[in-house]
């Protein structure tokens, strides 16, 4: 991996600079002394041909040169020793510190003051430059950290890399810890929490070090590092969540595909069984009552099993989003009549009361799906309401929508369960007997209604029983005035 390259040396230069500071200063004193030796030699050599002011310039030049390179101590040392050498070797009487001429005292004092002033000014420039360089290094270190952390693929890798960076930046005692616990408080250490929206992810602990101004810098760097690590952790977690979701979707898709294939294959033999059973039943006028009853059972149970498989298929298809709605303008009464005529055999001992006004707005729906919705609702009514009781189907218009209610006189569904019965495989309290239900019927109803941007709910019925109401958006009012006029045709 490209990010596995060794950590950049730039991040460590500050540390090395700090260590090297002391020895550099020692070298500085030597350089200061050497410079003074050189300037004094030159001055001594040119003295016979020059005035005192020229010699003073030569000495000053040495002090200024040193002050551009070294700190206040070395510069001051060079300026003072340079001034003394100037006095000793150049100001008459030569080879003595005495200055009988008061003008020479003025020259000496002036030179010393100018040298010190230049040292002081240069010191400011040097500090600014150093601060600028430090800030640049900090930025680079953080960039490097972010870049490295953005390429990790696991929390372990993130930890190792971040730890490595922190040790380079803050010394070997820097410590990274991923925990939601509070960091321990120790006087010699500075701790910085790594947080994501007030949620603790861990902390960094570094040894207190350096002078006050450096500490402020380190503090800034520490806070920024903690932020970068928090970002990287968050990114990693988001990536994990996305991967998990992807796997879950894949599993769900495979399961649906399997269910779909299996149920489809089950339908083929079932169709033969049912037709064969009905054939035997049709020719069974010569058979005895128990045989007829057995044959009737074969046919009815195959029919029921077919219904269950159909529901299972629909549930998986609707859930996986693989259903393309085949919408057409439909009249709900029309669809209700279609279902009633198909279920007429099983509804023969019920009184079905249909109340759908003729002027009910039409809906743009997939007729096959709405048909299945109605079949499921009516089958529930048949299953749970006592034989002989009435089933009511009512339709009414609402603003931009059409509602249909299917009501029965069964045990009803308690308010606490009215939402849960729509969940996959959930069975209501009253339904937990061996009644042939699967807990899929209402799930499909809801999926169908939602696919049509509608709503479905179970409502309380004052006089007992269950009332299921579904609402579908009504299609734009049919421009019936524009319908082709009645015309004679000889079809």
């Amino acid at each position, binding site marked *: 991996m490209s990010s596995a390259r060794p950590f950049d040396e730039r991040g460590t230069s500050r540390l090395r600079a700090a260590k090297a500071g002391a020895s550099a200063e020692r070298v500085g004193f030597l350089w200061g002394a050497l410079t003074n030796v050189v300037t004094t030699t030159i001055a001594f050599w040119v003295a016979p041909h020059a005035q005192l002011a020229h010699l003073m310039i030569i000495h000053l030049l040495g002090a200024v040169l040193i002050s551009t390179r070294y700190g206040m101590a070395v510069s001051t040392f060079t300026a003072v020793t340079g001034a003394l050498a100037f006095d000793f070797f150049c100001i008459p009487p030569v080879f003595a510190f005495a200055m009988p001429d008061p003008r020479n005292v003025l020259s000496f004092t002036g030179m010393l003051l100018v040298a010190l002033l230049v040292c002081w000014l240069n010191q400011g420039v040097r500090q600014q430059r150093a601060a600028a360089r430090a800030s640049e290094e900090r930025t680079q270190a953080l960039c490097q950290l972010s870049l490295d952390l953005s390429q990790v693929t696991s929390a372990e890798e993130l930890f190792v890399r971040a730890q490595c960076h922190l040790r380079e930046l803050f010394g070997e005692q820097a410590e990274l810890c991923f925990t939601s616990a509070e960091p321990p408080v120790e006087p010699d250490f500075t701790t910085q929490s790594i947080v994501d929206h007030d949620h603790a992810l861990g902390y960094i602990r570094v040894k207190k070090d350096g002078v006050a101004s450096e500490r402020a810098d380190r503090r800034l760097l520490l806070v920024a590092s903690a932020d970068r690590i928090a970002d990287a952790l968050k990114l990693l977690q988001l990536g994990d969540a996305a991967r998990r979701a992807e796997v879950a979707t894949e599993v769900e898709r495979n399961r649906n595909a399997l269910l779909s294939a299996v149920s*489809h294959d089950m*339908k*083929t*033999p*079932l*169709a*033969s*069984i*049912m*037709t*064969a059973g*009905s*054939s035997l*039943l*049709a*020719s069974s006028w010569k058979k005895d009552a128990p045989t007829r009853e057995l044959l009737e059972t074969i*046919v009815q149970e*195959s*029919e029921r099993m*077919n219904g269950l498989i*159909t529901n299972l*298929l629909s549930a998986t298809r609707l859930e996986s989003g693989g259903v393309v709605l*085949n919408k*057409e*303008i*439909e*009249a709900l*009464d*029309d*669809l209700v*009549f*279609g*279902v*009633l*005529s198909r279920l007429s055999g099983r509804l023969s001992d019920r009184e*079905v009361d*249909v*109340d*759908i006004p*003729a002027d009910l707005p*039409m809906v743009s729906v*997939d*007729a*096959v799906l*709405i*048909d299945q919705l109605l079949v499921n609702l009516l089958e529930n009514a048949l299953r749970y309401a006592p034989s002989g009781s009435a089933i009511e189907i009512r339709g009414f218009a609402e603003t931009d929508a059409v509602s249909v209610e299917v009501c029965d006189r069964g045990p009803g569904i308690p308010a606490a369960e009215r939402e849960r019965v729509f969940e996959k495989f959930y069975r209501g309290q009253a339904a937990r007997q061996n009644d042939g239900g699967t807990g899929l019927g209402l799930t499909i109803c809801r999926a169908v209604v939602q696919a049509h941007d509608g709503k479905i709910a179970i409502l309380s019925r004052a006089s007992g029983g269950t009332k299921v109401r579904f609402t579908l958006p009504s*299609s734009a009012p*049919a421009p*019936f005035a524009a*319908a*082709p006029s*009645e*015309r*004679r*045709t*000889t*079809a």
Partner: protein
Amino acid sequence: MIPAILVIEDDLPMRRVIRSALGGQGYHVWEAGTKRDAISTINKSVPQAILLDLGLPDGSGLEVLKVVRERSEVPIVIISARGEERDQVLALDSGANDYVTKPFREAELLARLRAALRSAAAYAVPLDEHLEIGPLRIHPHERTVYLNGKEVPLTPTEFSLLQVMARQAGRVVTHRHLLREVWGGSYVQDTQYLRVYMRQLRRKLEQDPNSPQLLITTPGVGYRLRVPDA
């Protein structure tokens, strides 16, 4: 003449069941399990009716349908599974006469087959001969309809709609077919007209418009004018 029925179905057990059911009614049964077999059988001799499964191992039943329709108006009943409504409609609009959805009872299959054979015969009836379907008597020439002997006043569109269905009584008629025949080719998408006129027709012809016994809805496909004991 004993009618010969060609059963085109790839599932052997299902074919066996159908063979037994049809045989019990005195039909001759020819069988084909693939598209190739079916087409070669038809090339040799055209049966009196065809039962056609849409899902064949070597192609779609729709292709067989096309081949048959190129040479013959023999009644074709589609055998299909639930969830294949689109293919059903496609088959019906491509010239199939009716369909039956798996799983079906023997009685349903026989009823569809009889209706298909009968309406093939009905097409042979001159256009202006009157039709009798259950309680209905339709006089195309006078454009009058009698329900249990009493005349029912229908608007011209209502009459056309009923007439199209009556000529294919017992068989499903697709929305597209009804719209084309009654309103004309440019109205085949306008199912809302159909809904409105079907509602009016039911109000005039059904004993209880809230429990239709004559004009039956087949969701997603079309309408069927029910023939008693069929």
